[in-house]
């Protein structure tokens, strides 16, 4: 086992190297306003004293991540200043997008992916080399990370790295370290706190056990560690009396239930149901109020954006998420198994995605990538991951709306589907002969459907074919049949269709968790 470890770690670096070459080539591609957001954070952490970081309003892209991320941007800004001082100039650097700043920021994302590399290495180092290689291929070459981090522009790679490191410690049984890294992660991006209930219950039952005294001592130890981490992050702001401002920035609940592009979650169906009900009730002559508020804007006073169905508030979504999480929490309470932690945490992020408030479609990364690490465990998980990753990746397509990136995102998804199919076939059809090849059509979903070996069921096949139909409709047929009218329909179709897939994934995960055997 040790020898295999020695020979296969260079493979991980090799996979990473190939991905890095592609990432370097993608440097001049489209980047979203998130790019300017991070550039602005570089500027304000560099040019302003700490007490003004969370209150500066020079740019509309204000700092809304927890302090560790701000320290991270401060660290990067030192190098940015050496390379090109205009990057970190508060006023002159506004909307600065020359080659230097683009290359610099893109390269920081590429380098920060090393953290994810370490995380996935740590998470898989006790597996056999075959399984390990397959997981590395699935994670390091994930098209979702490529699209979101390296084109659209974000820093999800290294945050997921911290998550993986934390999960790897938990799986090893070193709960204190696991808790420490999770606390660190929370101080980088508080969105990861959706899994906090799972962590809390698991650590309480797994770590703080073995009698009252020992349990209490361990509880205090864990509490001390977490408090210490939070202290390091927030203490300077408490000292400057800025803590209220920090919290206000981090939790802007003035936004609407949905993001401008509806993330494919449960609320899409809720909204559609409300609209349909309103439409039919109006047809039958009932007087239904037309809502003043919109779904994507903020809450307008007391008025609800819904005509028929009850209003949804942030608190409501919070309760529903907890409710959805409860089976998982109960399982974790009854039997805290280290082997199930990754699945529970992924489930937590799935619930957060499906039922949360103002969810971005990018948040699907939080549960899809961790699920890649358990996809090779058995055929069922592999099939589920195959479907889920294709659907989530496709739901990210509207992020790259420029024509230039169209072949790139399609090829990324196509390549990943082919790789996944090859990887899962290799793992699950050992010794079986592959059936004769049918003529190959270069379409996602079709490739898997036509080959033998790794099989997906008919309903899943047709769902994937449906993705193709949705895409053709959005790109081609809609403008032919409708011209310029109803321009929101293609995007809405994507949200709804992918939402179905995500709900399916949620149900599958829930079933798996409930049915997992207790020893």
């Amino acid at each position, binding site marked *: 086992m040790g020898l295999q470890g020695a020979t296969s770690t260079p493979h991980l670096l090799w996979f990473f190297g190939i991905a890095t*070459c592609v990432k370097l080539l993608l440097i*001049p591609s489209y980047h979203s306003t998130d790019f300017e957001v991070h550039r602005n954070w570089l500027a304000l952490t560099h040019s302003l004293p700490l007490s003004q970081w969370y209150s500066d309003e020079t740019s509309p892209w204000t700092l809304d991540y927890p302090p560790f991320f701000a320290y991270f941007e401060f660290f990067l800004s030192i190098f940015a200043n050496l390379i090109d001082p205009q990057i970190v100039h508060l006023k002159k650097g506004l909307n600065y997008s020359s080659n230097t700043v683009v290359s610099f920021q893109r390269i920081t994302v590429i380098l920060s992916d090393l953290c994810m590399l370490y995380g996935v290495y740590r998470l898989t180092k006790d597996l056999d080399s*075959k399984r390990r290689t397959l997981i590395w291929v699935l994670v390091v070459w994930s098209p979702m990370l490529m699209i979101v981090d390296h084109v659209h522009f974000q820093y999800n790679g290294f945050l997921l790295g911290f998550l993986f490191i934390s999960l790897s410690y938990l799986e090893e049984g070193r709960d204190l370290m696991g808790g420490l890294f999770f606390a660190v992660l929370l101080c980088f991006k508080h969105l990861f706190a959706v899994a906090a209930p799972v962590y809390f219950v698991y650590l309480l039952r797994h770590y703080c056990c073995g009698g009252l005294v020992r349990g209490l001592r361990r509880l205090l130890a864990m509490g001390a560690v977490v408090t210490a981490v939070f202290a390091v992050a927030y203490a300077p702001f408490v000292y400057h009396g800025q803590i209220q401002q920090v919290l206000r920035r981090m939790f802007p609940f003035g936004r609407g239930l949905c993001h401008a592009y509806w993330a494919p979650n449960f609320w899409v169906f809720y909204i559609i149901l409300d609209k349909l009900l309103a439409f039919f009730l109006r047809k039958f002559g009932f007087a239904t109020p037309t809502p003043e508020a919109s779904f994507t804007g903020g809450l307008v006073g007391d008025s609800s954006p819904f005509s028929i169905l009850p209003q949804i508030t942030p608190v409501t979504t919070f309760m529903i998420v907890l409710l959805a999480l409860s089976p998982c929490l109960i399982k974790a309470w009854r039997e805290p198994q280290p082997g199930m932690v990754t699945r529970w945490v992924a489930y937590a992020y799935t619930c957060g995605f499906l039922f949360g408030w103002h969810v971005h479609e990018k948040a699907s990364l939080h549960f899809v990538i961790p699920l890649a690490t358990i996809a090779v465990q058995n055929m069922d998980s592999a099939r589920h991951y195959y479907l889920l990753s294709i659907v989530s990746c496709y739901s990210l397509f509207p992020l790259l709306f420029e024509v230039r990136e169209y072949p790139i995102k399609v*090829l990324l998804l196509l390549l990943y589907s082919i790789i996944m199919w090859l990887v899962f076939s290799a793992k699950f059809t050992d010794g079986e*002969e592959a059936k004769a090849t049918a003529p190959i059509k270069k379409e996602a979903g079709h490739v898997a459907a036509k080959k033998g070996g790794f099989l997906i069921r008919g309903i899943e096949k047709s769902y994937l074919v449906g993705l193709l139909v949705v895409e053709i409709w959005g790109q081609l047929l809609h403008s032919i049949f409708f011209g310029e009218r109803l321009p929101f329909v293609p995007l809405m179709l994507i949200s709804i269709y992918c939402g179905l897939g995500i709900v399916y994934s949620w149900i599958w995960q829930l079933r798996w968790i409930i049915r997992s055997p207790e020893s």
Partner: protein
Amino acid sequence: MEKRRGRKVMKDKEESVDDDPWRWLVHKGIVASFLCIAVFALLVRAAVSLHPYSGAGNPPKYGDFEAQRHWMEITINLPVKEWYRNSTTNDLSYWGLDYPPLTAYQSYIHGLFLRFFHPESVSLFTSRGHESYFGKLLMRWTVLSSDALMFFPAVFYFVIVYYASRPHGQKTDIAWHIAIMLLNPCLMLIDHGHFQYNCISLGLTVGAVAAVLSNKELVACFLFSLALNHKQMSAYFAPAFFSHLFGKCIRRQNPLLEVSKLGLVVLGTFVLVWWPYLHSMEAFLGQIRAPSNQGFLYGLLNSAFSFYIFSFQVHEKSILLPLLPASLLALEEPFLLKWITFYALFSMFPLLCRDELILPYFALSALFILIYHGPSGRQDRRKRLSFNSVVTTLLVLCSVLLHIVYITMQPPNRYPFLFEAVIMFLCFSQFVVLCFYSNAKQWSLKRTIFMDKEKKLL
């Protein structure tokens, strides 16, 4: 047939398979591996297309991109007879067509495509120097589609044919060879960066090579004649084709009929530049005396090298021509391929710097090195170095240093092209060395094959 043989090979090597990190890529056969690698190669090409092209934003003449766009403008707006004639509507001094008619027909088809989606980019006169987001995108897509439709199927055909005669070949070797051919950094940088259509003529050439290796000589003649008619530089390979096919014909029952059949296929489409041919007389003679598939591939390499080294007005992009047979021979001569790719890239470095393609240059070079040195269960492929490693390391260090010097320092005023000259001299020296090596290899090949044939006759 191939898959069954391949699968049998796989079963024999079951023990080493478990540790093989590439089993997932190759276990479904050549077609699946090719598909996977081809989609990746297309992705890399699409990514390279994001970068600048030659002459971007550089009036009045711009560069190769503008030349190709201009040819589309000329071919769709003027009748066929006017395409090569100097007239008021077709000013030959502004990027006149200087490739044979197949390039013109291809420009016509692509011009129709551009006119359908973006007419302003190819309208007569008014589109000169047209540079727009959408125009660039459409142009890049014409190269991508040409590559996918011409070069990729040709490589697939070649791989099938080449490995049909090598039943003991390892599947991972086949996948490696496919990757080496499809992820050739020079071709990607020139076609999808600088902007050209070498993929079409090289694709036709590879198809012709594959046809020769599978004994379909008429198809080979046809495809190679098409290649010649797309870019006359394909004539670099003509001696090799001619000598091999002629040698085969002589051995048939009715040589005159065979030769006239080939001649008929070739005749209406041939334009040659003959004088450099004298420099590759040995390779030419060698193939007539004892034609073999192996010898044919080496003949291609030597013939192309001679033309490149001694021809008049050779562009640095012409290094793509010797590079092609080198990549076809990748499994036999891995070090040769690595060395020629390295110096081919380096010889194009000044050109790519002018086009602002430095980033893709380094990214694709890194990608090539990674693919070349990919992790593999078998190690013996790596050990086939036959050159002094101190010398090679020194040369590599010199080259790296020259890269840095070229990017960072200014040449002295008296010798403004000093750095280019030094780079070209270094590359030239390596090409000459490699040329000698491959000529020597082809000769020693002749002797062994000749001797084997003699033994068979006895």
